[in-house]
């Protein structure tokens, strides 16, 4: 039995039938800083190989020589559009292993923060998806609206891109006064944007003709390829960490997991719009149900020499792009023995994209990449 992903075909480069080009890293049509090695026959992709490592910083190594408290500013750099998930997961893993309980209100604020980050990243992703097919207008709107959300972040956390707000033990700061009202205004703006995107992108003949049926992922690929997040849900697998392994306060929120059936680029994009609406809904729920006062942080014993007893754990959370996971092993010292970060698009960008690209045209490759939400920094770390 040879699995579908292992049927390596051979192509004779000397025949003159094929062209090999390198797309990226210096190429606007590649998400982030990675490169694609394409073998083309005419415009059709025969073979694709992804090359990553342009953003390799050795996070896991760096964390091994940083104390626990010093790791939290660095983990958020793993995922730029949605750093908060990393902050949360690192904190959650450390808290679980050291047995620190965080205050109730901190949990709600963390969830709020995560949802805001997810919303921002997903809105930008929608814009990216439009841009990948040449519809720059949506891209312009989407990034601008994400920026409004970043303003809220700046107000809440003091940082624009890297928030460093979720710290082990809770969150750094109390929510500023009047924040809910200002956030609500942004949410209304984004809702309006989403309805506009509906009209311009989802009800667009050209967009539909390009994205429907493109890069379809059958349901039985989900497990062998390790697909998760919206990509899996678009193919009809209902797996959402928030629902299946509720963390923080997600079990107290009322929401449903939407799934698609088609599993193509259009379905994935549509599902992302649903994600945006869901995030907006959840943010409103959180703001309504959150305990109005209380501590937001517990003290970490011995901050400068925080030692976590030996142990290991894996914690996961749903980011905008799928399941994010941290595997942490401690040995009782001040430094983690090992932290392994599992980014949601880890397998998407390599094995899945390589498989999906075959037979599609060169022009569609960017659209496929964006729809898979591949993001290099979390792949190579």
């Amino acid at each position, binding site marked *: 039995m040879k699995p579908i992903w292992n049927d390596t075909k051979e192509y004779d480069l000397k025949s003159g039938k094929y062209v090999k080009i390198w797309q990226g890293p210096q190429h606007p049509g590649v998400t982030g800083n990675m490169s694609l090695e394409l073998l083309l026959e005419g415009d059709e992709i025969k073979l694709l190989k992804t090359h990553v490592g342009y953003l390799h910083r050795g996070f896991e190594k760096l964390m091994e020589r940083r104390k626990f408290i010093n790791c939290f500013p660095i983990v958020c750099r793993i995922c730029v559009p949605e750093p908060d998930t990393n902050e949360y997961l690192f904190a959650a893993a450390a808290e679980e292993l050291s047995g620190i309980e965080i205050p109730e209100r901190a949990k709600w604020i963390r969830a709020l923060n995560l949802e805001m980050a997810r919303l921002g990243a997903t809105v930008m992703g929608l814009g990216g998806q439009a841009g990948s097919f*040449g519809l720059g207008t949506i891209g312009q709107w989407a990034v601008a609206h994400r920026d409004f959300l970043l303003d809220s972040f700046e107000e809440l956390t003091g940082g624009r891109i890297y928030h460093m707000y979720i710290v082990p033990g809770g969150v750094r700061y109390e929510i500023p006064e009047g924040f809910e009202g200002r956030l609500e205004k942004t949410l209304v703006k984004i809702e309006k944007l989403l309805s506009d995107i509906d009209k311009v992108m989802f009800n667009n003949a050209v967009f539909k003709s390009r994205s429907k049926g493109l890069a379809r992922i059958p349901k039985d690929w989900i497990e062998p390829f390790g697909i998760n997040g919206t990509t899996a849900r678009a193919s009809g697998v209902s797996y959402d960490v928030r629902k299946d392994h509720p963390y923080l306060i997600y079990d107290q929120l009322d929401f449903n997991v939407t799934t698609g059936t088609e599993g193509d680029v259009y379905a994935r994009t549509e599902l992302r719009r649903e994600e945006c609406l869901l995030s907006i809904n959840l943010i409103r729920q959180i703001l309504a149900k959150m305990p109005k006062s209380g501590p937001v942080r517990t003290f970490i014993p011995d901050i400068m020499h925080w030692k976590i007893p030996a142990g290991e754990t894996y914690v996961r959370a749903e980011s905008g792009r799928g399941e994010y996971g941290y595997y942490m092993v401690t040995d009782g010292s001040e430094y983690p023995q090992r932290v392994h970060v599992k980014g949601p698009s880890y397998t998407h960008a390599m094995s899945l994209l390589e498989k999906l690209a075959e037979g599609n045209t060169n022009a569609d490759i960017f659209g496929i990449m964006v729809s898979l939400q591949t993001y290099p920094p979390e792949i190579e770390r």
Partner: protein
Amino acid sequence: MDNFWTTLLYAFLSMFLIFNYGMLLGGVVYKIIARVHGRFGPPVWQPYVNLVKVMGVRTAISHGIMFWLGPVFRFAGGIGLFLFMPVVFGSVWMQNFSFSGDLLLVIYFIFFGQLGMALGAAESGHPYSPMGIMRGLAQVTVSEVPFALAVIALAAQHGTLSITEIVAAQQGGIANWNMITNPVATLAGMMAFLGMMMHAPFNLHLAPQEIPVGPPTEYHSNFLGYMQANRAFFASAKLILFMNLFFGGATNIPVLVGKTFTLYMFAVFVGVVNPRFTLENSIRWFIRIPTATGIIAVLLYTF
């Protein structure tokens, strides 16, 4: 055409004017697009600054003679296209060179530039250039088909291949425009127009996302300057051509400006809100709808 030199002088003058018009038009259109994006956009004179900038680049790399002939060809194509069209009908100095078969020449010139680019870009050795050229040529070719059909319908309608005469036939009010008298051909022609104006959905060949800017990938410095200048020419020449063919030409400069601007805005109007077609999609679309329309237009006038 009593004095060749006077005509030549006039031609240069109109070329100068039309060049500036093209530059400004580009600037204005960017501003309008920017408004849809929700921003202000670059200043109107930005194309001039860009032009001076690229001309001022100190080094230039040539990949051989064909490489630098590319922009020259392209520039020649633009000028050629322009020079054989009456810009302002009835004006002495913006009449340009007109002769009885100039419509055919014009169609040729539309293509000419792309061909020249094909040679030059292929010389550059950058894989994206031939790819862009391949796509560009396919795009131009496929939009030439309905355009040619529309032109044939017009020629059949008016019994001439001279643009000046076609324009002349449309004078005397909007009812005489080919837009009204020959709506099917106009429809075909306008669809071809979308394909030629390098705006979405038919701009795959210079899409930055798919391949960086297409044919001009390797062009820089003054090469790029010529191409930019040509772009101003070429765009306005195309606008004038379509104005002449379907919308009754222009009898004075305000009308010229009004009509060409409107025409340009038509391409922009569609372009801003649509993604790009892939090449197959676009070819398929052109073969199907505009070409069919064109054939109907031709058939209507043949029978």
